[in-house]
C-alpha cells in the first residue's frame, strides 16, 4: 500500500480506486504464480524466486509484473503459473522451466507445450485456464479474485472492486435492509448446519444486550477439507468485508476470527489484511465517515476439532476449555461472554459482499430451490483432479466427479464418495442399481415400484445430501475406489471422532468408543449379525441424546455405510471376508502364477516372509506374513493377491503347479 492517508469517506475510496485503475495497465504482462499451501508443498517458491531473478537480470521489472497469488484450486497440478492477460496456463512448473517460459512465452510469445495441460480424456492440449475441464464446469464467485490478486496487497483488492459492497451497505442501506437482502438471497451457513444466514442475523440483531459479537469460524477441522484455509490465504479481504457488512447489519461492534494455529499462512495474510484495513480506516472507529465503528481481532485456536462447534469455539475464545454447552438458549442471544453473538463460517462471510454487490435476486438465481449460490468442495481421495472446486448448488455428483474431478486414477472403479467430513456420510456411487433401489426403499425415500435414481445424478445441495444420509458439512468430498473397505472407512472416521470428542457427555465419549470396539470386532472377523443391529441401535441413542452436533452426527459414517453397503458388512461378519482386501485380519497375501520372479517384493518384507530365487516363482510363508501390504504396493505385475484369510496356501500351491508344468514360465518371457 503506497498510501498512508486514511480513507475518510466513500469518495476518497473511489478516488483511490481510480488512481489504482489508472496506474494499472491491463495489457501489461503479468506472471501469476499460485502460492497456496498446495502449490507451496509442490515447490512454487523456488519457481517464484527464479522468475524474480530472471526479471531482475533482464531488467524488465517495468514491463513484466510478477505476482504470488492465492490458491487457484487445481492443487493436483501445482505449482501453477498463469500468464496474463493472455491467460496461458502452465502446470507442474519446475524452477528449471522458468527460463524456458521466459524465453518462449514472455519474450517469444509462444507457448511451452510440455507445460500445458493435457486433458487425459481427449489427449487434447489446452492453453487457456478457462478452457480446462476442471475450471469449465465450475462457477468461481468467491474464489474469482484469488487468481488475480496478491493476498498481501489491499491495493489489488481495492482495484478489483473490493470494499465496494461496504460502501454500498454503509451509505445506501439500512441494517434492516441488509438483513432483508441476505434473507431474500437464501444464503445458508456454509459451515455445515445450513441455517439461513439472514434469519440468524435478524435474531442476533433483535436479541437484547450489548456489545454484540461478530465471529468468523475459521476452525476448519474436517480431514481433507481446506476451502476456508485457501480462502483466507488467497483473499482475506473478502471475509473481512463480509464481516464489516454483517456487523453493521447486526449492530455488532467487536469481531473475532477464530483460526487454527495450524494455518500459519492464513494467520499471516489475515494479520496483514487487518493491519492494512486499520491503517486506511476500513476498520476501527468511524469507518468511511459513516459513524459506524467495528474492530476485528484474531484468535488462534489449538486445533481441536470440537472447537469448530459454535459454543465450544466461544468457550475457547473466552479462554476456557473448548467444550460445547447446550444450545437451548441460542448463541445469537447468549453466546460469547453471554452476549448476543453471530457466528458464521469463512465461506459464508465471503458470500456476503457478493450478495450486497449484485443483489439478492442475482444470488438467488444460482442454485436450487432451497440452496442458493455456490459451494466450494475440497475434492480429495482417489480422484484424478485433486483440488478445490466451486460449483453452483444443484450440480450433480457425476459432473463434480467426472467432468471436474476427471474420474478415478488407475482404471479403478468408483465406489463411493464421502461428504461432510467425519460427521457426514458415505454415499454409494457405483454399485448395482438394485442395491441403491433396495436401500432407498428400505428407508422410505422411494416406493417399491419407483425407479431409483443413481446417486451419481444426485443434485448436490443441503437437503438432497441430508436426505441421502450424508450432509453438506463444510464441503469435504473424499472419493473412494474399489480398494476402499467401507467397514474400514467407518472405522477410520469413528476413531478420528473418538479422539476428537471433547469427552463431556456420555453418549459421545463412551458411545463412539463402544461403536468403534464393535467395528474393530467386525473388521477382525469376530462380528456377528447382531453387532450390525447393535450399531444401528446405538447410533440412534447417540444421535438422540448427544450434547452437541459432533456427537449427534458421529454415527453418520457408520449408518450411511451400513445403509449403502450392508452387503459388505455382512461379508465381514458372515463370510469373514473383506471384499476390498483392506481388513488385515480377514485377508491373506499370496503370489499367483503371474509372478515374474523380479525379486522386488523380497526386500521390503519386514518379516522376511517372501521366499524365492530371482526369475523363479516366489511364495509367501503364510505363518510369517503380517499382512502389512508392503509387497502388494511394490509388485508391478499384480501378482500379489489379497485373498480370503486361510486360502493363501491353496493359491500358491496352484501357482507352483502351473509353474512346474511350464505354464507360468511364459509370463516372465513375455515381459
Amino acid at each position, binding site marked *: 500500500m503506497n498510501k498512508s492517508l486514511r480513507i475518510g469517506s466513500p469518495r476518497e475510496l473511489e478516488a483511490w480506486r481510480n488512481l489504482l485503475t489508472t496506474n494499472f495497465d491491463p495489457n501489461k504482462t503479468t506472471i501469476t504464480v499460485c502460492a497456496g499451501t498446495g502449490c507451496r508443498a509442490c515447490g512454487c517458491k523456488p519457481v517464484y524466486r527464479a522468475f524474480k531473478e530472471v526479471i531482475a537480470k533482464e531488467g524488465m521489472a517495468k514491463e513484466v509484473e510478477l505476482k504470488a497469488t492465492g490458491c487457484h484450486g487445481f492443487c493436483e497440478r501445482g505449482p501453477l503459473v498463469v500468464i496474463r492477460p493472455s491467460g496461458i496456463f502452465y502446470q507442474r512448473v519446475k524452477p528449471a522451466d522458468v527460463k524456458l517460459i521466459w524465453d518462449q512465452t514472455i519474450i517469444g510469445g509462444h507457448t511451452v507445450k510440455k507445460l500445458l495441460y493435457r486433458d487425459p480424456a481427449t489427449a487434447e492440449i489446452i492453453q487457456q485456464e478457462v478452457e480446462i475441464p476442471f475450471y469449465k464446469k465450475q462457477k468461481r464467485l468467491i474464489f474469482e479474485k484469488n487468481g488475480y490478486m496478491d493476498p498481501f496487497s489491499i491495493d489489488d483488492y481495492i482495484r478489483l472492486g473490493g470494499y465496494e459492497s461496504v460502501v454500498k451497505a454503509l451509505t445506501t442501506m439500512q441494517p434492516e435492509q441488509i438483513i432483508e437482502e441476505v434473507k431474500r438471497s437464501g444464503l445458508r451457513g456454509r459451515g455445515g448446519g445450513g441455517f439461513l444466514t439472514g434469519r440468524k442475523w435478524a435474531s442476533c440483531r433483535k*436479541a*437484547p444486550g450489548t456489545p454484540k459479537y461478530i465471529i468468523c469460524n475459521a476452525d476448519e477441522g474436517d480431514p481433507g477439507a481446506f476451502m476456508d484455509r485457501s480462502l483466507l490465504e488467497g483473499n482475506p479481504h473478502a471475509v473481512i468485508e463480509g464481516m464489516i457488512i454483517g456487523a453493521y447489519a447486526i449492530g455488532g461492534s467487536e469481531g473475532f476470527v477464530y483460526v487454527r494455529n495450524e494455518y500459519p499462512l492464513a494467520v499471516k495474510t489475515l494479520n496483514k489484511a487487518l493491519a492494512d484495513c486499520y491503517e486506511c480506516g476500513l476498520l476501527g472507529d468511524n469507518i468511511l465517515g459513516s459513524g459506524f465503528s467495528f474492530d476485528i481481532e484474531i484468535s488462534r485456536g489449538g486445533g*481441536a476439532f*470440537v472447537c469448530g462447534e459454535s459454543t465450544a469455539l466461544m468457550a475457547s475464545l473466552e479462554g476456557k*476449555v473448548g*467444550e460445547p*454447552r*447446550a444450545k*437451548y*438458549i*441460542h448463541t445469537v*442471544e447468549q453466546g460469547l461472554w453471554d452476549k448476543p453473538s453471530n457466528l458464521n463460517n469463512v465461506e459464508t462471510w465471503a458470500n456476503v459482499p457478493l450478495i450486497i454487490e449484485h443483489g439478492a435476486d442475482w444470488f438467488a438465481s444460482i442454485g436450487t430451490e432451497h440452496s442458493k449460490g455456490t459451494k466450494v468442495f475440497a475434492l480429495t481421495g482417489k480422484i484424478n483432479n485433486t483440488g478445490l472446486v466451486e460449483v453452483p448448488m444443484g450440480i450433480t455428483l457425476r459432473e463434480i466427479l467426472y467432468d471436474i474431478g476427471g474420474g478415478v486414477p488407475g482404471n479403478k472403479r468408483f465406489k463411493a464418495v464421502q461428504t461432510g467430513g467425519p460427521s457426514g456420510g458415505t454415499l454409494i456411487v457405483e454399485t448395482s442399481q438394485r442395491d441403491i433401489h433396495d436401500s432407498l426403499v428400505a428407508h422410505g425415500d422411494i416406493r417399491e415400484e419407483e425407479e431409483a435414481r443413481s446417486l451419481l445424478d444426485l443434485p448436490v445441495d443441503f437437503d438432497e445430501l441430508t436426505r441421502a444420509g450424508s450432509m453438506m458439512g463444510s464441503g469435504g468430498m473424499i472419493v473412494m475406489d474399489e480398494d476402499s473397505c467401507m467397514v474400514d472407512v467407518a472405522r477410520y472416521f469413528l476413531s478420528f471422532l*473418538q*479422539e*476428537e*470428542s*471433547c*469427552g*463431556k*457427555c*456420555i*453418549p459421545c*465419549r*463412551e*458411545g*463412539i*468408543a*463402544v461403536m468403534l*470396539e464393535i467395528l474393530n470386532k467386525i473388521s477382525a472377523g469376530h462380528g456377528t449379525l447382531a453387532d450390525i443391529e*447393535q450399531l444401528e441401535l*446405538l447410533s440412534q*441413542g447417540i444421535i*438422540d*441424546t*448427544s*450434547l452437541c452436533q459432533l456427537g449427534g452426527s458421529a454415527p453418520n459414517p457408520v449408518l450411511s455405510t451400513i445403509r449403502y453397503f450392508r452387503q459388505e458388512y455382512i461379508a465381514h461378519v458372515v463370510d469373514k471376508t473383506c471384499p476390498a482386501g483392506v481388513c488385515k485380519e480377514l485377508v491373506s497375501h499370496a503370489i499367483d502364477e503371474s509372478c515374474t520372479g523380479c525379486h522386488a517384493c523380497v526386500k521390503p518384507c519386514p518379516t522376511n516372509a517372501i521366499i524365492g530365487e530371482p526369475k523363479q516363482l516366489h511364495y509367501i510363508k503364510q505363518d510369517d506374513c503380517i499382512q502389512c501390504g508392503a509387497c502388494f504396493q511394490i509388485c508391478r505385475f499384480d501378482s500379489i493377491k489379497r485373498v480370503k484369510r486361510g486360502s493363501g496356501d491353496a493359491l500358491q500351491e496352484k501357482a507352483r503347479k502351473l509353474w512346474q508344468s511350464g505354464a507360468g514360465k511364459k509370463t516372465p518371457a513375455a515381459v
Partner: protein
Amino acid sequence: MKSQNGDKQALVTIEIDGQKIEVEDGSYVLQAAQALGIEIPTLCYFPFTTPYAACRVCVVEARDGKGWSKVVTSCNYPAWDGLQILTDTPRVLNARRTNLELLMSRCAELPVLRNLAGKLGIEEPRWGTGEDSCILCGLCVRVCEEIVGASALTFASRGGARNVTTPFHEVSDDCILCGSCASVCPTGHIRLEDQDGKKVNLRELQLGPNSAITMPFRQAVPNVPYINTEHCIHFQTDNCGICAEVCPKECIDYEQKDSTEEFEVGAIVMATGFADFDPTPLKQYGYGALPNVISSIEFERMNNAAGSTGGKILMENGETPGRIGILHCVGSRDDDHHKYCSRVCCMYALKFAHLIKEKTGADVYQFYIDMRSFGKGYEEFYQRILDEGGNVIRGKGAEVVPASNKKKHEGHLIIKCEDTLIGRYREVPVDMVVLCTALEARADAKEMARKLNISTGADGWFIEQHPKLGPVQTATEGVFLAGTCQGAKDIPDTVAQGGAAAAQAMKLLCKGEIMMDATYAEIQEEYCSGCRICNDLCPYHAIEFNDEKCISVVNSALCKACGTCVAACPAGAITGRHFTDEQIYTQIEGMLA
C-alpha cells in the same frame, strides 16, 4: 425451540406428566419436576452450580402439544409457556438406559451406578464393564470453580482419555484444602489423602460429616449454629454462600465479627478443664494407623445417642464388633508421658464394659496395671462387671497389631500383653481397641496462669493455695479453682470442688469488701525518682506508674508483700509496712546479740 426472552421473573405454566405447575420463565425443568415430587435420575446435577448436562440420564421428552417433540436434558432445559414434559416415555427410558449402560462400560461397580441401574431395570450392561471410579460428572470441577472459587481442578485431555486433575497433574497452590471436591464426589473417586500416616480427623471424630457450620454443642445457649471462619470457604475465597442461599429466614450474616467483651468481676472461678492425651505418638497401639483403634472419648461419642452412629457401637465397615479390647493407662502412669494416675480411666473403662455388654453382647477385655476402684460403690461396680463376665487381664497392653490372615484369628486386631497374674505372654484377638487416654493439662494452661498470676505444677495443672488448707483457692486473691484444671479427678470430685469454689467466691462477693494483710509495700513519693524498675519486677503487677506525678504507686489490694521491690528500689523509696529497714536491722541485731 421457543424463545424465553424477556423478564426472567415472568411466570409460565408448564405441564409435567400431566401435572400443571407455575414456574419462572426460563427456570429449569428438573427443578419444577422436583417441586412436584417427580423423580428424575441425575448424575452430574448439583443444585448450586450451573447445570452441566453431561451425564444425559436426566433426559425427558419435551413437547409443544402441536406435534413437535424432542429429547432434552431436564437439568438445563428452560421452561416456556405451554411446555409439556413427559418423564417416562419409552423413548426417554431407553435413552436413560443406553447412556447409563454406556457409562457402565467405563465404570460398572460403583454403588451409585448400580443403584440407578437397578431402578432402570438394567441387570447386566450390554457393552461390557469397566473399572474406572470416576464418572466424569464434573461436579468437583464445577464446585471448585463456581462455589469455592479456587479453580484448582480441571478436566484434562479429550475423549476417552478425559480425566479430572490439577493443572499439569501437580499439587496445586490454588487448592485451599477445603475438601469440597471430595464431599461432592458421588463415587468416592476423590479422597482426602492421609498425611504422615495420620488420618484426616474430621469433626465428630471421623464419625460424621465435616462442616464449617456447626452447633457449638448440644446444650449451647443460644442454641444456634455458628460459622467457623477458619474453615468456611466464603471467608477464604469470598465465594460459596450456599448457606445464605438455602436459609429461608435469611439469618446468615457474613459481616458479623468476633468481638472482645470486657467484664468487671469480683471473683474468678477457673474451670477450664483438661485436655485429652493424643495417643498417636504411642506407635505400638496403632492409633491413626490401624482401623478400629479409637480413643476413649471417641468411643464415648459413639455411645452417645446424639452422636453420628446414633449410639450404636460400630466398626469402620459398619459391622458390630464381636470382641473389644480396652487398654488402660495410655499416657498415664508412664515415665515417658505422664507419671500420674488419671484417676478416672478404670471406672469409665468398667462402665464401657457394661455398656458394650448391654448393647452388643460383645466380649470385653480390660488390660490394666492396677484396678483402682477407690470411691464409694466403685469396688462393688467392679465386682458386678466381673460377675457380668467382663474379662480383666492384669498387664499393660504392649502392642496392637493387625491380625494376620494366616492364623485364623477371630478378630481383626491382636493385642499383645504380659498377663502378670499367670506370668505369661498373651495375644488376644479383638475387633476393636479402645485406648483409655490420660487426662492432661490444657496446652494453654500456662498462658492462663500467667494472666491470673497463679502458678502451674510440673504436670501443667494449676496449683492451689494449699493442698489441705486452701484446696480451691490460689495464690491470687479472688481466683478459685474447680475441676480438672487443678488435677485429674472424676465427676463427683469435680462437682464437690466446683461447689466449694463457688462458695468461696460467694463469700468474697457477699461481703462487698475484702480483707487484706496488713503488710504491703509503700512508696514514699518524695523519694521516688520514677525510674520504673519496680514496675516490671513486681510478680503481682501491683505497681503502676502514675503519669501525672511521674512516680510509681503500689496497689495495696494486689500487693502480697513479697519485698522484691523494696530490695530493688535504687533510691530506697519503697518500704514494706511492718517490715521497715529499721525493724529488720533491730531484729538482726537482737538475734546476733
